[in-house]
């Protein structure tokens, strides 16, 4: 019985705090995206001469985002029945956009005119193979070549 109460407390904590932080994060992401809109970040540029560049530099933005208890529980259920893991979609979306923003913000400070050859990578942290318990956190890295 006590376990059940603790479980519901954790679920509520995960739901409310997770939602709150997610909304705050999205607000910040949207504001900063508008601010960095002028800098083009494009995926082309690999194995090609970089257009009209005098200087080039590598920019890396990375972020680690954790799931909350609520998301993990819903994911656990989803894992049983299969289908789209809707609760983790926002987690990855936030990760990608935040990593891109961090990369762009650095490039803007440096004075880049464009970022070419942008790549995104993600990996999960905290869950080793064979261990299905523990925290769920994802790392997203965005990197590209800034030119000016």
């Amino acid at each position, binding site marked *: 019985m006590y376990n059940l109460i603790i479980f519901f407390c954790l679920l509520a904590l995960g*739901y409310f705090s997770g*939602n709150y932080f997610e909304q705050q994060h999205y607000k910040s992401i*949207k504001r900063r*995206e*508008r601010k960095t*809109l*002028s800098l*083009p970040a*494009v995926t082309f540029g690999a194995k090609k001469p970089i257009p009209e560049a005098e200087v080039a530099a590598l920019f890396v933005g990375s972020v680690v985002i954790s799931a909350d208890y*609520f*998301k993990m*529980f*819903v994911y656990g*259920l*989803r894992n*049983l*029945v299969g289908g*789209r893991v*809707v*609760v983790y*979609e*926002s987690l*990855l*979306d936030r990760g*990608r*956009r935040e990593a891109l923003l961090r990369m762009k913000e650095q490039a803007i400070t440096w004075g880049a005119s*464009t970022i070419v050859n942008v790549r995104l990578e993600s990996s999960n942290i905290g869950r080793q193979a*064979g*261990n*299905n318990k523990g925290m769920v956190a994802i790392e997203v890295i965005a990197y590209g070549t800034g030119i000016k």
Partner: protein
Amino acid sequence: MKYTPKEITEEVNVTKVHPLVNLASLLGTTIVVSAAIYLGLGFVAGQLATRMDPETEIKIGQSLFPTGISHREHSQQLEYVEGLLGSLQQEMGATRIPLTVHLWENEQLNAAIFPGGNIVVTTGLLEAVETENELAFVLAHELGHFAARDTLKALGRSLVFVFVSTAIDSQGGASGVVSTTGQLTNLHYSRTQESAADLYALEAIIRRYQHGGYSLDFFARIKAKDTKGKLSEYFSTHPITQDRIDELKTIAAARGWSMTGVASPIPETVTSSDHLP
């Protein structure tokens, strides 16, 4: 090529589903599907239990019976319980396999029957009963579970439970299996099974003593001074309610069974706790 900056306004990468709606639909699906599987496999297990031959039942009993509990062998107490059980069996007809009584040195009040005809009675129970009629009712109740193959059905359900939870906990490995196997010996019966076992017990008591007096006193007394811990063990598997006692009294009245009579005492040698085995 001209670069046109474009703000993300449509969230194509995040599905617009309210998290709670998502949770509700998932919970619903999981509960419905697992209930269906549980009921279906439970039904199969029940069918197997009713068709099991005695040899298999004995084998299962041997492999499942908890080892390492301190028995009290060759004592007068054990002989007494065996004798009482034997006399009850005589009244109700021979059982499909021979029963074995195990006297367990434990201060908890508990009596339980395991698959394979192993009856465990705690020394705590022997000390707590005041008349033979009380003890006889508890034993006959367990006999009722045995006769109805409730133990096997419960075992079947537990096996299903272990199977399903192991499948869910597929990456958990051995730890999950070990913890759930513990549930095998934790037998739970349904209300209907309890009522049937009660009725069986009362019938055996009537045949044995020609009256049902004192036989229900144990439950009434325990219920009155229900303290935590010591008693909870038996009543976690056999929830005793006033309904059950009332139901038995109604049936007894309807069948013309006498519920008053002379109490049969328990021999001194059995009740004294300082008795040497």
